Structure formats: C-alpha cells, structure tokens
C-alpha cells in the first residue's frame, strides 16, 4: 500500500508528539527524554538536509555547528552559574541562563562560522568538499579538547537547565514541547524555503551549476547562503542538545556525529521534509532498545543503512510513498 507523502508526514509528526504524551500519562519521563533527543537530532538533520537534500552538498563536518551551538550554551550558562564574566575582545558579559538569548547567540555564531567555512570549502566540490568539511570538523574537535578553560576533554557540566519565560524547563514534557515546537516551525520554514525561488534555484544549481549561471544565478552564492542557513539551524539544535544533557563536550564536534546526521537523513529520505524526523526516531529507538541489548547496536544500524541504500533509495519515506525523489 502506497501512502501519500503529506499523510506520512502527518503520521510521523503526530507519532513523535504522541509518544511523550503517552509517556506522560503512564509516568515514563525517560521516554519523554528520548523523544526530546529524537526531536533535537531531527532538527540538526533538518538543517543538514537543506544542504544535502536541496543543494546536494555532503558536509562531513556539520558537527562543527552542533558543537558551536552546544558550547555557546555551555559557556554562557557556565558564566551565569559561576557568576564570572566572559571577557570578549570588545565587551564583557556575565553569561545568561535565558534559552532565547542562548539560541540567538548559538545561531548567530554558527551562521558566522558557517559563512567562513563555506567561503573556503565551497571553492571545492565532490570528495574534496567532503574532506575539507571533515578537516574543519576535526580542527574544532581538537580545539575543544585543548580548551582547558571550558573543561577540555572532560567537557562542561551545567547544573540547572536554562530557562524559558513562562515554562519550567526542568519538567521533561515542557522541554519536549519547546523542542517539538522549534522542530515544527523549522520544518514549516524549510518547506517554504524549498518551494521558494531560492530553494528552487539551489536545487537547480545542484543539477546543473553551469546552466544556473546562464539564468543569472550565482551557484556559489546560493550554496553559501544554504550553508549559512543550514549551519544556523544545526547550531540551534546543538544548543538544545546541550541543554537536554546539561553537558557539553568535544564529542559534539566529532566526525562520528557528522556521519550520524548524514546516516539518519539517508535512512529517512534525502531531501524529504520528514526524512530527518523519521531517521532520528529510528536512530534513537535503535540506540535505546538495541543499545540496551548489545554495545554493538551500530551493526544493526549499518544493516538498515545498507538495506536502505541498496533497496530503498528514497529512504523510509520513499518506501512508504513509493517515490524515490520528492518530484517523482
């Protein structure tokens, strides 16, 4: 039976919302935390999917922005909880425990770093682009390891989750509500972006860069803007992820995390609106259920990935809808 993609999308989002609500009823707060983790990973992957799915750019260093978001949260919250000042070159601040402020900083920093990385890495393409983004990821990873002021290899713990006006973020379902709402808003904006002239031009640039130039579009500029938007979204996800765990560490910059983001997009469906959400849900479910049985649960993830790549190139959404690509 083939399902329509809007129906699949609705079921996926409804499912992600229903699980924590059910967990709330049966008093299973850990399940709510799992759903929150899935929503945040999905958000990060939605960011990457703009680059990968629309722009066709395989960034193997997207954990950079996840980590920047995480460290933006960690550093601001650390200074706020220790009542110390954060000395920046032009001004000093005492940090903050306000989530909206942290999100803005995380997104702004991630976007700025994405702009710089994009300027350099988009001079290349194909395997060289993959390698240069990976190299940037490793640079940030090793920098974080050696950054003793903020925990170095041990990372940085935040004692109390940051606050959001009108909500108690320590209550799991309320924090899930924040993450789920942000995910829904981002999905809505991503859908609008994909259908906009910018999104279409980016898609066209993926198909035939030279031809795009003859209609007056600069493919490098299109990809750079996509890179910046993508980085900002992934940075926001990083800040939420750090808040979920109340902990940041260099692993947020790791190439394994970049790879996992790509894997869960492929599992869900590259370029599909809900591909990252399905992928993140499957990833978190496997991590939890199989991870409890064996530490080698990645083997099963690998088998699923192999099956998807070999037999279902549109990902899970492709299998459910019978469409390999968004337009087919």
């Amino acid at each position, binding site marked *: 039976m083939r399902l329509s993609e809007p129906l699949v999308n609705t079921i996926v989002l409804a499912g992600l919302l229903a699980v924590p609500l059910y967990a709330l009823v049966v008093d299973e707060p850990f399940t709510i935390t799992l759903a929150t983790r899935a929503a945040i990973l999905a958000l990060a992957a939605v960011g990457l999917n703009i680059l990968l799915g629309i722009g066709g750019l395989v960034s193997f260093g997207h954990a950079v922005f996840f980590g920047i978001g995480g460290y933006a949260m960690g550093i601001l919250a650390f200074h706020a909880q220790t009542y110390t000042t954060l000395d920046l070159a032009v001004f000093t601040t005492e940090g903050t425990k306000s989530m909206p402020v942290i999100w803005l900083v995380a997104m702004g920093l991630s976007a700025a770093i994405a702009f710089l990385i994009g300027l350099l890495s988009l001079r290349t393409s194909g395997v060289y682009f993959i390698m240069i983004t990976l190299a940037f990821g490793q640079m940030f990873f090793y920098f974080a390891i050696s950054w003793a002021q903020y925990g170095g290899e041990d990372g940085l713990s935040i004692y109390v989750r940051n606050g959001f006006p009108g909500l108690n973020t320590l209550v799991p379902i309320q924090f899930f509500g924040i993450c789920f709402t942000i995910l829904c808003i981002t999905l809505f904006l991503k859908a609008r972006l994909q259908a906009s002239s910018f999104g279409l031009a980016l*898609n066209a640039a993926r198909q035939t860069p030279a*031809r*795009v*130039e*003859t*209609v007056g579009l600069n493919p490098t500029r299109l990809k750079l803007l996509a890179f910046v938007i993508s980085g900002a979204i992934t940075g926001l996800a990083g800040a939420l992820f750090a808040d979920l765990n109340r902990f940041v560490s260099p692993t947020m910059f790791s190439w394994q995390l970049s790879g996992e983001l790509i894997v869960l997009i492929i599992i869900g469906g590259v370029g599909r609106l809900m591909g990252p959400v399905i992928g993140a849900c499957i990833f978190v479910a496997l991590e939890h259920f199989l991870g409890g049985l064996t530490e080698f649960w990645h083997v099963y993830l690998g088998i699923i990935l192999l099956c998807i790549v070999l037999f279902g190139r549109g990902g899970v959404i492709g299998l459910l809808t019978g469409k390999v690509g968004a337009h087919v």
Partner: protein
Amino acid sequence: MSLLSVEGLTARYGSSQALFGVDLTIATGEVTALMGRNGMGKTTTVKAICRLIRSAGRLTLDGADLHCLPSHKVARMGVGLVPEGRRCFADLTVRENLIAAARPGEWTLKSVAQLFPALAERMAQRAASLSGGEQQMLAIGRALMTNPRLLILDEATEGLAPIVRQEIWAAVRRLKEETGVAILLIDKSVKELAQVSDKAVILARGKTVWSGPMTDLTPEISERYVGV
C-alpha cells in the same frame, strides 16, 4: 547604438583556437541570424558572449564591457540563453523551472504560458518527463523569465518534429513583433532564418566573413559559406 557589440572576438579551447575575429552588432528589437557550416564557431561565439568561455576582443552590452563580468552577471544584465540541447532542470517541474529563473519584468508565468499553451497544461509536470519539443519551449520560457534584452537561441529547433518546429518559429515571430527583445538565432534551417531575421552574420573558420541585411543574402553567398 547597438545593444550588443562584438569586435575582433577571439577564443580558444586549451591550446586550440576556435575564434579568430568575430564581428557582429545587434540593435534592440533586431533579429540576427548567426550562420555558418558546422564547426565554424557559432556556438563558441554564443558561449563567449555569455562568458561561459574565456575570450578576447571587444564585447559590450549597451556599452558595458562584458569581459570583466562572470556569466551570471552577464545574464543579469539582460542576456538570456537558450542553450543547445535544452538542458532544463530535470528534477524540477515546469513551474519550478520558470520560477527558479524569474527576474522582475514583463515576462511572468502567465505570459510564458500564453506564448506556449502546451506548457500551461504541464506546469506541475517534471521537466524530465516532457517531450523534446516541450523541453525546448520550457528552455525558451525559462530564458524569457529572466526578462532579457537579448535572447540567444542556439539550435532551438534541432531534432524536433516539423509541427513543433513550426510552433517554435511562430513563437520567435511573436517575440519579434510583440516585444522589443533583440534575438540572436542559430539554426540549420536557412529558409526559416531568412523569413524571421532582419540581418545575418556568417562565420567561417572562426571569423566573420559576411554580414548584412537578410535581403542582401544571395543564394551564391549562402551556398558558398553555409552550404545551402
């Protein structure tokens, strides 16, 4: 004053020189046929005008030097190209192909659909699933959506069924009669070119060997340089 002015244009592919001195001018609203046998440099000239390959010589659009501009800026200045082989964005629908290229101006989805009614019926269809003729119409529509001052059609009717060719030529005539866009045409059909063009420029071995009003193009000149 000419809209496009090309003087002594030279270009090379690596070590192989392809253009040895192309001269042509196109005025606003004028239709110019760029003619010549195969391999004489017609498409290379178009690529040089659009800055898709490096070239030397004088190349100006409305007095502005095109040599210092990248190809996307040349397109933004008003040079619309319908490339040989169509090259639509295969994964996008007809509507999306047109929207992706759209720039402000008189050409809109509606006016393109009026020019090519066949496209109007297939707005939601993927470009890859269109027939060759429909893809060609889409390629022309996409170039028009950039609202060009100069439209270049490189072998726009190549490989199409006679009835589709007629539709394309009818659209070119409408563009000539109803808009002020200058058109540079490359096509193998000398008869059709003669009917629609105001003047002709003939290339041989990468340089201009004849140019003048289409009415001055005698069968002898055509036979000598174009082979028809």
